[in-house]
């Protein structure tokens, strides 16, 4: 039989309740990550088969403590639940609470319940009930909360089938709200409100007027009315506070007879870990050690798969050339498409490793301790403790990092974080650094255990962070923005990370990167190939011109071919482009070939390596060796020395450390700050810093 009915389910809950685990259990691999229209908050949806004929479309809403949003992510939760035209407007809401924090988690539940949408309550992590001495009277709790309760442990696959049955029977759910809160706040006020918005439920109307958000689904009259109510801000604020206090009173009342906690069974593992991990000395040492481990890990572990990918694509290229008939099409495949795809796939190892580390740190609950430890220090730089996570994420890619800054509630702190993130060493810089380090830094050990190449990489990372911090201090003192801070963070209990969750997270992030940035890289590789293998008249007459020259008469056939190829590259379209910027880049120690790579890597830094690969591929008569070998063989015709010598290598590394070379990041900064002012500031400021430091370094070392 064909499935013909779809139930729309919204998963909602506080952060750290295991909501994502539950989502993964329900939907398995049948997930898709889309974007909310107009903004780039990820929207996670998946399909879950309930029985032979009914399917559920499950939306995993961003974690939130309450329905009153304080960040963009949380605003989406509200819009999904209030806007009946929203494609994800749920038939049934599943509120996930965690056994240990049931009291606080229920606050969100009582708010949701007032929306008059069928609601199921999932109490998660019940496998820990006994150990923690917690006992719940489910029947009585169901009666008091007017709901269906499912006891579950998403990680241990307990309660999943029961939840599916409950979702199937959603139409039977009681939608009465708990306690007449509005009456107890101010009966007269809420009666007026009720009459003003007859078409909505009372609590929905209350939410419409309390949030400082423009709701698109309202008509003009309703919008005016909402604004009128919002004028009395003091009253709204007072009533919101009263509402929260009343809700807790009701929850305490409900839990008095239904929840029993035997405190003697509570272990103090959390306390012990906290004393060590947030210690004023050990806390920082541990954090520094973790960072060091991550960075050394990325560089040494990722090298093997990366070398493998690199040489595999080099071999594939030459193989294609021998198998396919000679011609433009073969050249396009072997010199444009294959190196292009190779240039994308080579990032996978590093990105995957970095995201694995980051998601482990998030899953265990350790990240909140880092926020706690770093907040005061980061505030001296005009940022927040919450800026640490975006800055670390920035070492993978600035784009998700900038989006991760959304939970910083102070605008000034958030803006500074966004502006300095591109200084952190993102994975797109890694291939550039990796190849330059391999060319100019010897593969030696110092002090017995530190690899000199790994050490250089670490210095480059530190350089990025230093630039970020220094520019943050500058911005902190220059920017005159007053904004209120609402710094409140939860310190979740420590958890053993779930391999499944980490796997999902890493696959998702890596996929997003490859399909996002990959398209640009591939397109540019092909354009580059075209620009390098076509050119005006001199390019077309290259063969004739070279062979007619006197001095080539005595040369071998191979040598003549080589001369032709290099003459062609020089007079191709890209050759002219590179030459036209040569005067500008010469002080940094670059020639027009590096200039070509510089121009092309403006779209995305990693294209630098791909571009050089294409250039030297066209340049060489035979397809020998990897990109690195070809770069190492390149000679500066003026000095007779290696093209990628120490001064040029250092100058290039500095340039790539500081320059804002990523169209994707500029676009996201524009979107997040809603202004061209900030991305332009980044582009110009970082560009100048890059140029000046590269020129200085080149002149010092040569």
């Amino acid at each position, binding site marked *: 039989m064909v499935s013909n009915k779809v139930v729309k389910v919204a998963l909602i809950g506080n952060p750290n309740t295991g909501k994502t685990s539950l989502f993964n259990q329900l939907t398995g691999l049948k997930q898709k990550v889309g974007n909310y229209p107009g903004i780039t908050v990820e929207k996670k949806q998946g399909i879950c088969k309930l029985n032979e004929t009914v399917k559920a479309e499950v939306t995993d809403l961003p974690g939130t403590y*309450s329905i*009153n949003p*304080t960040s963009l992510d949380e605003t989406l939760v509200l819009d999904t639940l209030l806007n009946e035209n929203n494609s994800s407007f749920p038939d049934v809401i599943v509120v996930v609470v965690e056994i240990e924090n049931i009291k*606080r988690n229920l606050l969100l539940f009582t708010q949701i319940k007032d929306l008059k949408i069928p609601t199921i309550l999932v109490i998660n992590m019940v496998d820990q009930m006994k150990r923690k001495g917690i006992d719940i009277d489910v029947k009585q709790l169901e009666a008091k909360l007017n709901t269906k309760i499912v006891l579950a442990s998403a990680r241990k696959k307990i309660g999943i089938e029961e939840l599916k049955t409950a979702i199937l029977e959603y139409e039977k759910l009681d939608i009465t709200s708990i306690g007449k809160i509005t009456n107890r706040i101010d009966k007269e006020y809420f009666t007026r409100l009720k009459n003003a918005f007859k078409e909505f439920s009372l609590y929905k109307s209350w939410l419409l007027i309390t949030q400082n958000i423009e709701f698109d689904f309202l008509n003009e009259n309703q919008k005016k009315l909402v604004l009128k109510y919002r004028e009395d801000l003091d009253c709204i604020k007072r009533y919101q506070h009263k509402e*929260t206090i009343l809700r807790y009173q009701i929850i305490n009342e409900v839990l008095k007879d239904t929840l029993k906690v035997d405190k003697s069974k509570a272990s103090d593992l959390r306390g012990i870990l906290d004393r060590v991990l947030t210690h004023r000395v050990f806390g920082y040492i541990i954090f520094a050690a973790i960072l060091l481990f991550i960075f050394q890990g990325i560089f040494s572990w990722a090298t093997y798969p990366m070398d493998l990918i690199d040489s595999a694509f080099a071999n594939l290229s030459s193989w294609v050339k021998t198998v396919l008939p000679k011609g433009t099409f073969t050249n396009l495949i072997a010199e444009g498409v294959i190196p292009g795809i190779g240039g994308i796939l080579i990032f996978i190892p590093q990105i995957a490793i970095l995201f694995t580390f980051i998601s482990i740190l998030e899953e265990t609950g350790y990240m909140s301790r880092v*926020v*706690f430890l770093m907040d005061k220090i980061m505030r001296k730089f005009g940022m927040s*403790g919450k800026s640490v996570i975006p800055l670390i994420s920035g070492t993978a890619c600035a784009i998700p990092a900038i989006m991760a800054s959304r939970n910083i509630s102070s605008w000034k702190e958030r803006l500074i974080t966004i502006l300095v993130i591109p200084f952190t060493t993102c994975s797109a810089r890694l291939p550039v650094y990796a190849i330059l380090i391999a060319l100019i830094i010897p593969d030696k050990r110092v002090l017995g255990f530190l690899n000199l190449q790994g050490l250089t990489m670490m210095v480059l990372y530190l350089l990025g962070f230093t630039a970020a911090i220094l520019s943050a201090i500058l911005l902190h003192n220059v920017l005159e923005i007053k904004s209120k*801070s609402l710094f*409140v963070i939860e310190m979740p209990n420590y958890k053993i990370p779930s391999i499944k969750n980490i796997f999902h997270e890493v696959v998702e992030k890596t996929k997003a990167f490859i399909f996002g940035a990959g398209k640009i890289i591939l397109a540019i590789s092909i354009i580059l190939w075209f620009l390098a293998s076509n050119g005006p008249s001199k390019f077309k007459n290259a063969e004739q011109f070279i062979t007619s020259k006197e001095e080539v008469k005595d040369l071998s056939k191979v040598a003549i071919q080589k001369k032709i190829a290099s003459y062609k590259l020089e007079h191709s379209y890209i050759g002219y482009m590179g030459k036209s910027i040569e005067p500008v880049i010469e002080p940094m120690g670059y020639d027009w070939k590096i200039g070509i790579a510089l121009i092309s890597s403006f779209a995305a830094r990693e294209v630098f390596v791909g571009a050089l690969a294409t250039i030297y591929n066209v340049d060489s008569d035979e397809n020998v060796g990897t990109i690195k070998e070809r770069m190492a063989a390149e000679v500066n015709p003026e000095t007779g020395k290696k093209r990628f010598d120490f001064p040029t290598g250092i100058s290039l590394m500095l340039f790539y450390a500081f320059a804002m070379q990523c169209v994707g990041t500029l676009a996201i900064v524009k979107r997040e700050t809603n202004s061209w002012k900030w991305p332009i500031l980044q582009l110009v400021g970082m560009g100048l810093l890059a140029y000046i430091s590269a020129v200085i370094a080149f002149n010092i070392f040569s």
Partner: protein
Amino acid sequence: MFKTIANLRIGEKAFIEKLCLDNIPLKLLEMGCLPGIEVELIQKAPMHDPLYIKVNGSHIAIRRETAEKITIVY
């Protein structure tokens, strides 16, 4: 002199007396930080800011400037 959460020593407990509503984020109340509730200071970050507190079963960290606006009684 009023005592506030910022005056607590590590491991010390007290009851929340009053929150200065104008300056306290709603989120803090929603996390269970309410008048009459017991609060315990678990840890102070270096330079005594932020403060890591346990209140109503929630473990949360708040900045000193916020803590100074929540008065306590023993």
